[in-house]
Every structure is written in C-alpha cells, then in structure tokens.
C-alpha cells in the first residue's frame, strides 16, 4: 500500500514537473486543398494559409496592414533608395537545426529569383543583387527604388527555407518543406489533411499554444461549418455569407470578419483583341460609363454577398489608406446612363459577360444583367468553367469578364499587372504610356503621401476609361469555437497562429 502511495506521489510529481498540459491540436477547415508547399513555386491563396504556420517571413503585416518585423528586426533604405539593408533576428533556427543567417537569406532570395518555375521571380525582379554584409545583415540592391518591396517580403518572397534541405530536395522540396516557422511539417495526404507539429526551437515559442495543427480541406462551405458545429474542427476559413446568421445564433461559435485586400470586378475588353472594337462597350468609354451607372453596388453586395462585403470602385477598398477619395463610388443613375448611350449614338447595346461557374460569380452576373437592362443594355451571360474562362480571357476572346483577385498587401500588387501594357494579368488590353508612367512613379516613390497623390491620378483615369469596373471587396469570414482566443484579423486573410489558444 505504502509503495503504491509512493508511486502515486512520484507520478504526480512527474506530471507537475513536465507541466502536464494535455497535447492540444488545432483543427482548421480550409476551403481548398493547397498546391505545392514550396514558397518559391506556390501559387494559391489557400497555400499561404498553411504557410502561416510553417514558414516565417522576413516581415509580417499587422491588423492595419503596417509592416512589422518577423525574421528581420529592422530595415533601412539606402540614400538613393536603390538599396535596402535588412537586419536579421539572431538565434533563429530552421526545422532541421540549421541556422537562419544572412547567407541563408541570400540563398533564399536567389532561389526565388532563379529557380525554374519560380512564381516569385516577377515580384523580386527589381532586386539585382543580394549581398551578405555580416552574419545578421543582408543588403538588397535594386535597379530602381521599389516601394512594394517590403510588402512583397511579407508574403512568400519573404519566406525562408532551409538551404541545406532545399539543396538536397531540389524541386521536390514542397513534398516536405523545412522552414523556420512555429510548426514543422509532419505529413500531407492529398485532399485529406496537412499535419504540422510544434517546433521546439522556435524563436517566439512563448506565443505558441498548440502542439499540432491539422489543416483539413473541405470544399463545401456548409459541410465545413457542419464540421465546426459537430466539434470536429476548431476553426473554418471562408465561411459562406449565407451561413453567418446560423453562426451568430450558436453561442458555442464566434465569427470574425475583415474586409479583404482583394476585389471582385468586371474586366472589360477595351483593346485586348478585335472583339473590343466590334462592341460599343469596348469601343466607347461613354457606354462603359453608362454600364457602370446602371449598377447599384450596394444592392449587388446585398444580393450576392448578403451584405458581407464592402462596395468599392478601386483596386483597394475604401477603408485603405491608398483609396482615392477624389473618385468616390458612383451612385446608380439610370437616367444619366440612358442619356450617355444617346450621346454615344448607341441604341440597345448588347454584350456578353463571361462568368466563371462559381456561385458568387453567377449571382453577380444575374444581378448585373437585371440592373443593366433598366438602362437599356442587354447583357448576355456566358457561364464558363474557370480554367476555360482564364484561357479565353488570355486570348482576348471575351467582351466582359467577372474576375476576382485575392489581393496583395501593397496596392501595386492589385494594380500594376492589370493595367500596364506588359502586365501579366492585363486582360482588358488597356495600354497607355501615361498609365505606365504613373504606375511606375507610384512604385518608385517611397513617400506614402506622394504615392497617394499618384494613385489619385491613376484612379481618375481608371474611373474614366473603365477597363475594369470594380464592384466590391469581400469580407473574410471566419467561424471558430468560442473557446478559441487570441485571433488576429489581418486583411490578407491569413490565419496567424502566434497567440492563438484554446481557453
């Protein structure tokens, strides 16, 4: 009996000594299955959600989109703004125990810039040289000042992987990524789960309160929510707007939302192909203005998103510091729309609106069709499977196209590639030397006030020419168990795991 008591005491003492916290797992429901888990090659939004626990970045964003340190502790622009000095956090290790130092950062940035198939090459193209100044300092030389650089380094371009592991794995690195984030990769079963576990040597380990995170891709929003309500998940991203009331009425659940940095809009073929000239919408800016005036964005937000979005008319939401107030969201004005059509000498214009088959895009198309009809514009809806629609857009085989963009932290990421002559996503075909010059100016100036002024000029041109009619900015909707605390809502839609805990 005595020995049994002793044994019990010893067991209790051991429990106290080891902290005795039960192993905690955070289960996150994702809207899609991510693609390759290699920051250099990765291409999807949902992949970035998983990277948030695996791979730390040089810089991060806070709730107000300010750039804050992560693996870097400080930065300094050179006198001519054509170089950037980055100071690194000391004592940071990769998941394989290798040191994260200036040499590793140089390796990573060069990997981003040169690896075949790298999706980061474009973002980092202004960086011409990377120099190791000392073990904790790197210097990036630029061809010209490049304001979005810091914001670029808050995303996949700023993610650092273990050079040793990357060298060993080559282009198979994504199968078992080794970074320096709070969690390390355990396993991935395609379309089923991605499991990561706590990295004991994480530099900021006091902010990590889970032992494991399991990411479960569940494409149907309703099923994702059902899993949350059944207690099988602790958190779901991208809740459907129609499910918001049911989450609100459940006191075991909480809801968080924040306006995204991306947008939903209609791209108009103004010069991408000959189709532009064949249609009054592509040919005449007055017809595009009439079309825009026929739309009631608030009503679109209500019908399509059940109010869970913010109406907008620029590449950044009206809440952004870079939103140009000189070009406000136009109010619906059917009479003016009709007058404009008369002025343009166009009676009963008609165009085809290509629409991906997602339910949001379909709903937008139907509402837009009904609204435009009031102004005498006939919109024909052409529902097209997404991959096919991208291809048609790329070839200019469309008149108008509903397309969403997930957004980038710096406004340039939402603008440059859509509106400049050589922009990779320029489906409208809009191309003027003036616009290219303005966009270039907005990128090379590091003074936010000056950039804002340039954006006002750009907004005025885009608002007049309308190669893109921006409609709204969705709310990121997150639902999670009410026991979960410490959640930070950053407009980029990433689930930051630092500080998260179950109460």
């Amino acid at each position: 009996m005595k020995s049994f008591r002793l044994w019990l005491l010893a067991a209790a003492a051991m429990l106290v000594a080891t902290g005795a916290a039960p192993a905690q797992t955070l289960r996150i429901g994702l809207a899609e299955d991510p693609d390759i888990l290699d920051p250099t090659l990765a291409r999807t939004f949902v992949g970035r959600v998983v990277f948030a626990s695996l791979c730390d970045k040089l810089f991060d964003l806070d709730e107000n989109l300010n750039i804050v340190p992560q693996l870097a502790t400080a930065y300094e622009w050179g006198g001519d703004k054509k170089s950037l000095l980055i100071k690194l956090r000391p004592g940071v290790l990769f998941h394989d125990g290798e040191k994260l130092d200036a040499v590793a950062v140089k390796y990573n940035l060069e990997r981003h810039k040169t690896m075949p198939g790298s999706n980061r090459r474009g973002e980092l193209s202004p960086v011409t040289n990377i120099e190791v100044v000392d073990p904790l300092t790197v210097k990036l030389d630029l061809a010209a000042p490049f304001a979005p650089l810091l914001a670029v380094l808050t995303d996949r371009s700023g993610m650092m992987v273990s050079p040793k592991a990357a060298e060993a794995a080559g282009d198979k690195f994504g199968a078992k990524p080794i970074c320096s984030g709070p969690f390390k990769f355990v396993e991935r079963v395609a379309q089923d789960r991605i499991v990561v576990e706590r990295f004991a040597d994480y530099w900021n380990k006091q902010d990590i309160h889970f032992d494991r995170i399991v990411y479960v891709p569940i494409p149907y929003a309703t099923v994702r929510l059902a899993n949350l309500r059944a207690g099988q998940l602790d958190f779901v991203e991208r809740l459907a707007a129609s499910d918001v009331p049911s989450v609100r009425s459940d006191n075991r659940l909480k809801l968080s939302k924040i306006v995204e940095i991306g947008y939903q809009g209609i791209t108009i073929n103004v010069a991408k192909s000959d189709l532009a000239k064949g249609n009054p919408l592509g040919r005449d800016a007055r017809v595009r203005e009439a079309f825009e005036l026929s739309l009631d964005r608030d009503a679109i937000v209500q019908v399509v998103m059940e109010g869970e979005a913010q109406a907008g008319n620029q590449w950044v939401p009206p809440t952004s510091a870079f939103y140009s107030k000189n070009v406000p969201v136009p109010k619906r004005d059917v009479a003016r729309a009709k007058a404009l059509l008369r002025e343009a000498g166009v009676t009963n214009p008609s165009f085809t609106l290509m629409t991906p088959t997602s339910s949001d895009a379909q709903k937008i198309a139907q509402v837009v069709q009904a609204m435009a009809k009031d102004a005498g514009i006939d919109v024909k809806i052409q529902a097209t499977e997404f991959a096919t629609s991208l291809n048609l857009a790329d070839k200019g085989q469309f008149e108008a196209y509903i397309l969403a963009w997930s957004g980038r932290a710096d406004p340039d990421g939402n603008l440059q590639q859509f509106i400049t002559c050589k922009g990779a996503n320029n489906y409208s075909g809009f191309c003027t030397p003036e616009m290219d010059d303005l966009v270039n100016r907005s990128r090379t100036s590091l003074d936010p006030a000056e950039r804002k002024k340039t954006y006002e000029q750009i907004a005025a041109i885009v608002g007049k020419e309308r190669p893109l009619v921006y409609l709204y900015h969705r709310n990121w909707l997150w639902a999670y168990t009410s026991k979960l605390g410490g959640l930070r809502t950053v407009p980029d839609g990433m689930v930051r795991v630092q500080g998260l805990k179950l109460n």
Partner: protein
Amino acid sequence: MFNYFVQRLATIIPTLFFVSILIFGLQQLLPGDPAIILAGEDQDPNVIAYLRGKLHLDEPLPVRYVYWLGGVLQGDLGESLRIQKPVLELILEKLPVTIQLASMAIVIALAIGIPAGIVSAVKKDTAWDYAANIVALWGLSTPNFWLGIMLILLFSVQLGWLPASGYVSPAEDLGANLAAMIMPAFVLGNAIAAVLMRHTRSAMLQVMNADYVRTARAKGLVERVVILRHGLRNALTPVITLGALEFGTLLSGAVLTEQVFTIPGFGKLIIDAVFNRDYLVVQGVVMFTATTYIALNLVADMAYFLVNPRLRG
C-alpha cells in the same frame, strides 16, 4: 488453357493501346491551357513558359503522346504538377479508400434491396409492397448530395454520434474508420438499394409463378423454403449481375458523395485534377482504372474457362 490465355492476352494489348490513345486524345479536347490554370493567380509569363515546357505543351500532339506512353510503359504515370507527387503514389493512396467505400455501399445496398424486393414481391399489392415501393422511390429520387448533408446535420451536428466528414485509415483506428465511412456508404448504398429492390421484386414475381415453384409448393414445402430456396436463388442471377455493375461504377469514384463527406477517394482525385487541369493525374487515373477493368475481365474469362467445361472444347 495456355493457348486460350495467350489468345486473350493478345487481344488485350491492342485494346489497352486504343484506350491510351482515347484517354490522351479526349483529354486534349478539354478547353483551357493547363499551363495557364496551373500558373495560378499571378499568371507570371516565365512560370507559364516553364510549365508549358514541363508538360511538353509546345510539342506536337503525337510527340506528347509518346512521352506519356513511354513513361506509362515503364510504370511511370508522371507527377501531379499541382502538388508535386507521383501519380501512381496518389492512386495507391486513394484506391483502398474507394474500395472500402464501394464495398460498404454495396453491402448496405444488398442488405436493404434484396429483402425489401422479396417482401414486396411475396406480399404483392399489400401495405408491405406499397411501403417498400415508397422507400425505393425515395431512395431513387433523393439526391446524394442532399441526403449527405441531411445525415451530417442529424448524426453529426444534432446528435454528435458520427464524425461529419474526413477519413481515418482502418490501420490507424478501425472504429473511427467505420464511423467515418458509414454515412457516405449509406448514402451511396441507399440509391443502389432502390434499384436492386425493384429488380429483385420483378425477378421474384416472375419466378414465383414458374412451374417449379408450383411443384415445390405441391410437394408440401413450407413457404419460407419455397421463397428462399426455389424462388430467390433463381431470381438472384440478374440482381447479382446488376450489383456487380453498380460495384464497378462505385469503384471509379463517387464524386459528389466523396466531396460532401471529404472522403479522399478516386472521385475526388479525378474531379480536382480535371478542374485544375492536372493532366497527368487525369490520364494516370483513367488509364489505371481502364487497365484494372480489362485485367478483371480477363480474370473473369479465365474463371469461366475453368468452371465451364464446354468452353474448353
């Protein structure tokens, strides 16, 4: 026997060759450039060029076919460009899941469909018959998708008895595996049960009027023995053929059900691959399925040959 085997094998090779051309050719009819969709949101021209090179998209169609076939002949089905995993590995990962789901579904279908069919035939034009018919009609007309969500809401959200979705390997935890699979298996089995019930009913009605059944009754056998031994046995042949066909269909994946319950099976693999234009995955999965079908057919033929002396000549 050996000659017969060689003969059959000789017909299989051109069949497989034809199938491979068909799979490859049909895939090319899919609109949309795979490099563009795989390049993701950014549409970086360098990335698109790289992907085009990797997929040999700039080469003529026959050359691409030879690249692919060359790999297939060496057992290399290529690699998923989206997640960088060998296609064969993906197939082998999903296959056991689909086999289990299909088997459970067919067992459920047989367990419901056949007894319901018998009762409905034997008790023709009674309340039993009507009830069975109503259940069958319900099974046939209920969309899998809707039934799946309703079951999740009832058994997972309201009652909390079963997991809402997901898959656990039976090697890891058999109980959890069965708990995760029972709802999707029921959803699939339910629809098939209705078909089986209708077929069992009509076959039984026909058989129960046959002379030998009358003879059996005249011999004074109890009704249970008449129904099960003399009626059902003879009625089962078309039902089993149908069940086998349904099983075959289930093996090629139950897309909607797998999506609703997030079961990582064949259906989900192929549908995601089609939408993401992950060509090598689509080609690999279809080629694998076709080869399996053909191989199973060969086995069946050999079995007939062994069982049926008339074939041996």
